[in-house]
């Protein structure tokens, strides 16, 4: 299968190139970048030095392919969606442009009107574990937000089983590394300002809240309070969610809830160990892998449950999940090209 990437010079684009170059079934044709057209891809992604001789091309030079990934910045892909449809019959967009089903929700969370609202429902929301059957038959798939992916995968088994107290909010704190902000510099990414930061950059109103509510609302009426904090990591997301259970449950019952949801999933691991250093999900050991680790802890003084989920924002939170979706659309083993287990120590 011939695959091309729109907007391949960013961090997500670089991860897509890395994954697709070593993919057993996909052949990478074009990687576009208006800014870097003509340059070696490895000049921008130095980890790929001598791994590929591909060069960036312009969007206008994009030839037909079987599947097109878009890693363009938010807002860019949606404006040109109709033109890209003639390039490839199948498209996976990793921007935020098509994550929300409702134009009103899009305006609420993104602060402007969607350029092609009539196409919002052309895309399948692409967290593989919750939309696998739809993705299999889809022509257009949208990636999910990295923080939203962790939150949804952590919480969904509870909502699906009606275990969350409907009357009370779910409070989610997300910690995220610097690569989630992209590769465009800003005053806040300047090293003296960013290094060592534990920075609440979005205590309320984070855009991923819309996705979380959208997906959990298929299984209840969630009230979600979401805060995001930038921490001293390059890659990685950890969400910590607090909620009230609808009824008291013990550890064994919750283990079985999560087992029923995820035992057959190749990239979801339940992590709640009784010994060792890494007892709960932790992004440190997930760098470069496509895993999302999910864990939980019951507050012994009440019915509060703490849910934890960790992933690599560039992998399961973006490019890795996109490749997993491609594998399903193509009918391949969904682990193809995604076997890297991460590093330890790192």
């Amino acid at each position, binding site marked *: 299968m011939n695959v091309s990437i729109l907007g391949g010079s960013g961090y997500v684009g670089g991860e897509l190139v890395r994954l697709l170059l070593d993919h057993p079934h996909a052949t990478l044709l074009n990687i576009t970048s208006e800014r870097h057209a003509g340059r070696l891809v490895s000049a921008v992604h130095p980890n790929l030095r001598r791994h590929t001789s591909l060069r960036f091309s312009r969007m206008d030079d994009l030839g037909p392919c079987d599947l097109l990934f878009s890693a363009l910045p938010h807002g860019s892909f949606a404006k040109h969606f109709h033109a890209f449809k003639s390039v490839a019959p199948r498209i996976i967009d990793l921007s935020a442009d098509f994550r929300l089903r409702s134009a009103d929700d899009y305006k609420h969370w993104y602060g402007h009107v969607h350029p092609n609202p009539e196409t919002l429902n052309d895309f399948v929301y692409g967290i593989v574990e919750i939309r696998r059957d739809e993705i299999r038959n889809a022509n257009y798939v949208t990636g999910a937000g990295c923080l939203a992916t962790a939150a949804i995968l952590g919480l969904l088994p509870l909502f699906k089983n009606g275990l969350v107290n409907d009357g009370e909010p779910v409070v989610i704190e997300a910690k995220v590394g610097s690569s989630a902000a992209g590769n465009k510099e800003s005053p806040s990414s300047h090293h003296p300002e960013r290094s060592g930061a534990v920075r609440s950059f979005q205590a309320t109103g984070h855009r991923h809240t819309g996705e979380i509510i959208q997906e959990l609302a298929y299984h209840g009426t969630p009230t979600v309070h979401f805060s995001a904090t930038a921490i001293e990591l390059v890659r990685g997301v950890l969400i910590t969610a607090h909620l009230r259970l609808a009824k008291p449950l013990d*550890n*064994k019952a919750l*283990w*079985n809830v999560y*087992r029923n949801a995820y035992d057959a999933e190749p990239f979801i691991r*339940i992590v*709640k*160990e*009784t*010994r*060792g*250093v890494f*007892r709960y999900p932790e992004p440190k050991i997930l760098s470069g892998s496509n895993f999302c680790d999910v864990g939980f802890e019951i507050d012994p003084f009440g019915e509060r449950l703490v849910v934890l989920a960790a992933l690599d924002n560039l992998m399961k939170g973006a490019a890795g999940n996109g490749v997993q979706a491609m594998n399903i659309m193509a009918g391949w083993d969904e682990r193809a090209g995604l076997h890297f287990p991460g590093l330890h120590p790192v």
Partner: protein
Amino acid sequence: MPNCLECDANIVLDQKVEIGEIVDCQDCGTEYEVRSIDPQQIDYAPKEEEDWGE
């Protein structure tokens, strides 16, 4: 087949397992000491104090 006292996973004992042997749960890592072979019985293994980081 005994179940984990913490997470309810099945603890599969090797046919050659001996009384006193330490086995662990594949899911949550809890360690058990084999107390009986027939019937198969396990109980928590003695725990070393550990400082796993603050």
